[in-house]
């Protein structure tokens, strides 16, 4: 049953028409847990990110939310936390999101945990912020010209 749910979630990942694995980064094979990239146009270029297989985001973190994540994956650990977002590293992000659909996808700039991780918490269309998050934001950014994801990211003091 769980496997069915996971495959449903994975099937919702948007792949822009013509999207291909990264040219110069190590390509993600079909067996890669990183899947295929999501794309959207930004200015004259195409932006590309990969859904993290190991990170999920709790938007509006709470004690109850943390307990729920721990119940689904006892090995889950918090890797970043701010007032409005908490990032969890889990064994299988898709599985955890399937059980807890309020959790939001995390995307990486490259198919690598070492690359920048961002959380689509909204959408910006023509300079106006639009309420949409997670895969909905990514889908709409891919389809609607002039729309880009509004990402949450962890800032790094230097």
């Amino acid at each position, binding site marked *: 049953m769980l496997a069915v749910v996971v495959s449903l979630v994975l099937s919702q990942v948007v792949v822009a028409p013509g999207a291909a694995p*990264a*040219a*110069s*980064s*190590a390509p993600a094979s079909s067996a*890669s*847990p*990183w899947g295929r990239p999501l794309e959207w146009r*930004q*200015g*004259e*270029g195409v*932006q*590309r990110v990969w859904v993290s*297989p*190991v990170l999920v985001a709790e938007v509006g973190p709470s004690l109850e939310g943390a307990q729920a994540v721990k119940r689904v994956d006892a090995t889950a650990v918090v890797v970043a936390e*701010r*007032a*409005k*977002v908490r990032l969890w590293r889990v064994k299988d992000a898709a599985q955890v999101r399937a059980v807890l659909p309020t959790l939001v996808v995390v995307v990486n*700039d*490259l*198919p*690598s*945990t*070492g*690359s*920048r991780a961002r959380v689509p*918490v*909204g959408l*910006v269309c023509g*300079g106006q*912020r639009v309420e949409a998050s997670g895969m909905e934001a990514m889908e709409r950014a891919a389809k609607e010209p002039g729309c*880009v*994801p*509004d*990402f*949450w*990211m*962890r*800032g*790094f*003091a*230097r």
Partner: protein
Amino acid sequence: MRFLAALAALALCAACWRNKDPGIIAFFTVTPDIISAGQSAQLSWQALNAEGCRITPDVGAVAAEGSWLVSPTKRTVFQLSCAGATTVRVLDVLPEVRVLSFTASTLQTIPDGAVKLTWATEGAERCEVKPGFEDVALSGALDVNPTQTTTYTLSCTGFGGPATAQQTVTVVPAMNLEVPTNPQAVAGDSQLTLTWAQAVGAANVYFAQAPNLEAGTIESMPGGVIYRRVGSPFVLTGLANGRTYYFRVSAVSGPDETALSTEASGTPAAGPAVADPYFGEQWHLLPDGGEDLNVAQSWAEGVRGEGVPVAIVDEGVDLAHEDLAPNVATLRSYDYVGGAPVRWAEHGTCVAGLVAARDWNGKGVRGVAPRAAILSYNVLQDLTSTNERDAMVRGKDYVQVSNNSWGDVDDGTGLVTTTDSQWLEGVREGATTGRGGKGVLYFWAAGNGADSEYEDNSNYDGQANRRFVFAISGYGKNGKLAAYAESGANVLVSAPTEGSDLVALTTTDITGRAGYNDGATLGEHANPDYSATMSGTSASTPLAAGVGALILQVRPELSYRDVRRVLAYSARKVAPGEPEWTTNGAGLHINHRYGFGAVDGQAAVAIARTIVPAGPELSFASPVAAPAVAIPDYDGTGVTSTLTLSNTGVGHVEFVEVLPTVTHPRTGDLEIVLSHGGTLSVLHLPHRCVPDGVTGREVCSDLVDYPFGSVRHLDEPGDGDWTLTVKDKGIGNVGTLVSWKLVLYGRP
């Protein structure tokens, strides 16, 4: 037979031992050893060679083995005594959290009427007042101006549980709202205390640097601003001494507002000068302290950033800090989470002190621009694309300098990171339309990842790499580059920080023990409000930003592009024995590690006084070169492609963007260099790539039209040959230089 004899002997011996030897306590435990008031803990024990035991206090005589529940109301030391043996266990009792009082100065008011909430608690670790205040003192007071009937809830938590209390303030319609009278401004050192007489409601203060204020035009006047819904007295700090400010005031209550009062004015004046006790440690400011900023002479001439607003874009700033408060621009800061507690603000507080800690106030330290006005944008507490943009443009006609000792990517990965589109729109807007079109000065930390195993480079940072910002690197007291400070063709200048000689910077820390300095750390001050450990390009950047404030004090009409030239031309060739110093086509000394050199305050101010503003920016986008040539593997020559440009119109280059597209399975093998008239801009260097934590594979960056930035060709002509060289210095992969193009920015 021998077994039975041995058993009998053992029984005899045990009896003998019990009778003659002292008791032995096998164990004595208390579980748990910390409880809240009202909870119980269990004492458990076992004693050998004892008929019985005694536990004090409260328990009394007990068997030699057993357990007992206890519920003390305070910390208790339990003693177990058994036939001469004694041991103790401690049970800590956390205090119950209690709200001792929570009152409102009035339970009925009009819309926007002033109400003071006052409370006292005990046993609490944290309190909040809702609606509106996430983190308040455990016992204290605050002013509220409800616009409608509001129930305020004080909620406190602590180890001893939660506690709450409520007060409802009923709001009734206003009657007889009248124009305030008798406005007065009492001058202080960099501040004005505004007072007026008002019967009911709150007030809107209309404030500007010119007379004849009118409500409709206030925000187009010099320094014009409306401080909304405040009360008398109203203290404005962060003002320029010697400058006259004007104000009028209206009464407001809900949607109603009266006409403006008569106008009053005041002129802040310097107070008595008292030395700052930790100034002697601030080697970065002292003329004989090492490779300092050389600001003493400018200060002596009165150039101290007087009234120049500097936004500290960071995690937050302790705006009430004793050495920052006099310079805080009243009500100009913005809190991106609403009620962010000051304990989150240690980094930003250290940064703010380096820019503009108050001088000659008998407290702590000094900033580079010790009379600049500070405001805090704590965007790192909620760093979204839209907030990044907001932090770049918020108050863009008021803010003159924006300090950014942060990045939205982790340093040290060596990955080329694309620029967030919203942030880019923000800095573009701020640089081109902010400050009345002259552009906000964005100072940006170059990064701290140079000494990571992936050899990070500032050119890979999608923010520090951009033309709208000034990328700042850092060197130590001995002038040598800090090993962690990132190089890059984008690095404009460098400034002091902690280097390999491990001499960090002394600056402000958040008030109390919650910051970097808890007052008990070796090498730190006993006064926890200051820290001697600030380091990183986070530290060098605000020092350069402070010099930016000095520059704008003497020449506020300079554009951000002019200031970039001022900083480059005034930079000092620091550590001349260091490798790679060379001279560009305009005769400026340059170094990928130091940029044009060390920031020099006095030289910068001197050049700022005389530099001719550049006028409108020109740009020239080259045609796309599409060589589509294979890059030979592990080859010292590589491939080159040249764009020969003519009639660019850019007689003096100020910034270059180079956008190569290279397909290569492992871009970490590549060296990419732009050359023009003998000046080299090293854009990308071979380095390891970060392994993916899931698959274990190394993953390198894509290089598709990434706009590598370079300041190194400053004031060189745009026309001529621009050559891109790409070398593969790794073994085992081949790729292709598909295409590349240039965009030149500058002036005729």
